[in-house]
């Protein structure tokens, strides 16, 4: 609640600004070495896979970290928003009557833009509605109350989907053709390029929004000190609603990516992804958007590494072990310039 609480900004000093990218580079190199050791020939493909999954986790983790940064709430419903996003993309795609890959490039672009826009918009609005009705009234209540409503909302969303749409695995048509770009040394699927580029573009856009715009400044000031921000003329309710909108829209985009990349979704998928993305947010330093991205990639690498070494079933346990280890040894996360409240 005080000044030491979360700031949604990147590091303040120019030298420190390079810390995030440097650590990311180190993580990438180390992970590549570990993957190469375990996967041999398959290493480049597995590495790309890890980056893609990492980008997916990073997109979800951003929502967790933004919401935590601004109202200090673990939004348990965030994983379900991601899941709902994948269902929205599924319904949009099937409504348009598409059943397989689209080879016509202009048409593919239009379809992708429509799917992403609708999914992000719908989930953003859902996020705002959830904040308005389930969290806003409890902003000054004891800490336990909003946590309980959050878990309640998560169950509501999950069961609306499971009762209303489907309680089994739903297959989402793969829009992007499965062609490979060959670079001689290695080849990479179009879908991987697309997912990674999209995720990076969204992250850069978010970063610019937070650091360069008035609304972004309002968000950062609200995260630092809500009362002071209010005194400076920031409309707290609008700012928090916008934070929820952006975070949920990113989760909606992640939901579409899930459909495009993995090709299936199911009503209880949000739980697992939510847990991993939250771990990513904590790993990077919760409240820190750069950290969330870093954490997302770390989790992606951890997961693929555990698969490469033949422990695919244990990837959740590995990620959970990472979460507990971070909380024991460095509760502020890898980048955490913000102090975790130990009270």
């Amino acid at each position, binding site marked *: 609640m005080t000044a030491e609480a979360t700031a949604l900004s990147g590091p303040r000093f120019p030298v420190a600004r390079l810390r995030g990218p440097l650590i990311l580079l180190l993580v990438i190199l180390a992970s590549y070495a570990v993957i190469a050791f375990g996967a041999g020939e398959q290493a480049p493909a597995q590495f790309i896979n890890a980056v893609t999954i990492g980008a997916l986790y990073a997109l979800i983790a951003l929502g967790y970290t933004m919401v935590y940064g601004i109202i*200090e*709430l*673990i939004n*348990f419903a965030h994983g379900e928003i991601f899941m709902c996003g994948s269902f929205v993309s599924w319904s949009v795609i099937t409504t348009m009557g598409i059943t397989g890959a689209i080879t016509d490039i202009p048409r593919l672009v239009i379809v992708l833009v429509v799917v992403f826009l609708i999914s992000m918009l719908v989930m953003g609005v859902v996020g705002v509605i959830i904040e308005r*009705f*389930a969290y806003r*009234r*409890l902003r*000054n*209540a*004891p*800490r*336990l*109350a*909003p*946590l*309980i*409503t959050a*878990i*309640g*909302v*998560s*169950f*509501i969303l*999950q*069961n*609306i989907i*499971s*009762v209303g749409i489907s*309680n089994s695995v739903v297959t989402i048509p793969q829009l992007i053709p499965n062609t490979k770009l060959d670079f001689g040394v290695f080849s990479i699927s179009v879908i991987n390029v697309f997912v990674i580029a999209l995720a990076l573009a969204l992250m850069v856009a978010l970063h610019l929004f937070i650091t360069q715009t008035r609304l972004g400044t309002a968000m950062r000031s609200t995260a630092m000190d809500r009362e002071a921000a209010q005194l400076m003329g920031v409309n707290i309710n609008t700012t928090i609603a916008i934070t929820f909108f952006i975070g949920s829209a990113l989760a909606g985009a992640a939901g579409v990516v899930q459909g495009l990349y993995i090709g299936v979704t199911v009503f209880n998928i949000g*739980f*697992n992804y939510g*847990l991993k993305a*939250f*771990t990513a947010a*904590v790993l990077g330093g919760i409240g820190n958007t750069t950290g969330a991205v870093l954490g997302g990639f770390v989790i992606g690498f951890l997961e693929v590494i555990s698969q490469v070494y033949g422990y695919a*079933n*244990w990837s*959740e*346990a590995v990620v*959970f072990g990472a*979460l*507990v280890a971070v*909380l*024991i040894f460095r*509760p502020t996360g890898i980048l955490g310039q913000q102090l*975790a*409240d*130990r*009270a």
Partner: protein
Amino acid sequence: MTATSTVPPRRPSPIGRIRAFFGGHQSLAIIAGAAVVLLVLPQIALLPPFSGFGTQKDWVGGFSNAGVFVLLAVGLNVVVGLAGLLDLGYAAFFAIGAYTYAYGASPFLNLHIPFWIMLIVGAAVAAAFGILLGAPTLRLRGDYLAIVTLGFGEIVPVVILNANNYTNGTNGITGLAQPSAYGLFGVDGFGFSNPWPYFVTVVGIVMVTMILLYRLQDSRLGRAWVAIREDELAAASMGINTVTTKLLAFSIGATTSGLAGVFYASKLGVVTPDQFGFTVSFTALAMVVLGGMGNTLGVAAGAFVIYEIQSTGLKQLGQVVQSLHLPVVALGPIKVDIGSINFINYQYLLYGLALVGMMLLRPEGLFPSRRRRQELHEDTDEVAEFKSAETLEAIDR
């Protein structure tokens, strides 16, 4: 509320006198309550409309399962209601208790330790896991506990599922021994076809647990829990070791869950990983919140009612609605056929709505503890201030 409440000088009525007596002797009150439950509940099952839903034996078997959830809920109430910590992985300790019993009393490891010893062993093992998990996380803010327990609750079934060699994976461990009362008290003959001894046992376990929990609640430790819940900083300033105190609450919750697990495993005779999913933790949380966080008796009553509604009520509701032959309502393109709704599918949706609704409208629960209600409505003054600030803004404009 507390055991020390003074007896009023003039006793208005015999009921008041009884209330005053039991107010001062909570343990006796709980024993009396357990006796009433033991004698009256099975008789209620014989009355219409309940007798129409199943035989007395079915009901008594159901009551034993309800007892498991009562036990889970009163244990979780210590963590959530008294200490104000959110534990979302409660089912993990339930699973640990159950698997401990499976290891100790089945052909799997060829051990045949008596149920009553395993009851204590299972609880102790669950408590040990509670301390292991709580020690690193309780130093941090409460939210972290919520997410770590959520993760733990998710991981334990995954580990059980994947560690095939040690847990038999998906198939679980079968052939768990039935308890034996050694012919004492005439309650012998535990068996799948005879639910009575289980019912008696679970009432006994719940009774002892509740006596202990009530004693704890009014002890120095219990007051420390409430102090931490209400204001952690102030409690720490008064010399309370917040980490140890929270850890004790957390592990006592885990212990109770372990007890419930041992009993549940002995009743079913088989343990599989899918019995201990997140829905169990969530159901227990809904029971605590609906019953009234912090009020052990309210939580126990809430747990019993919710369990009976979910196990019998929803099914019966579905059958009743079906028998009415309601017409299919068409809302535009959507056709709503109320008669074909399977109400059991809506169970968790209802819990979710109930949790959100309760937190927004009546955070103290259906059977509130007086103290908790005051605390949860503490912010009403702040709301008033906030409102007046808004009015000022409106005038400014």
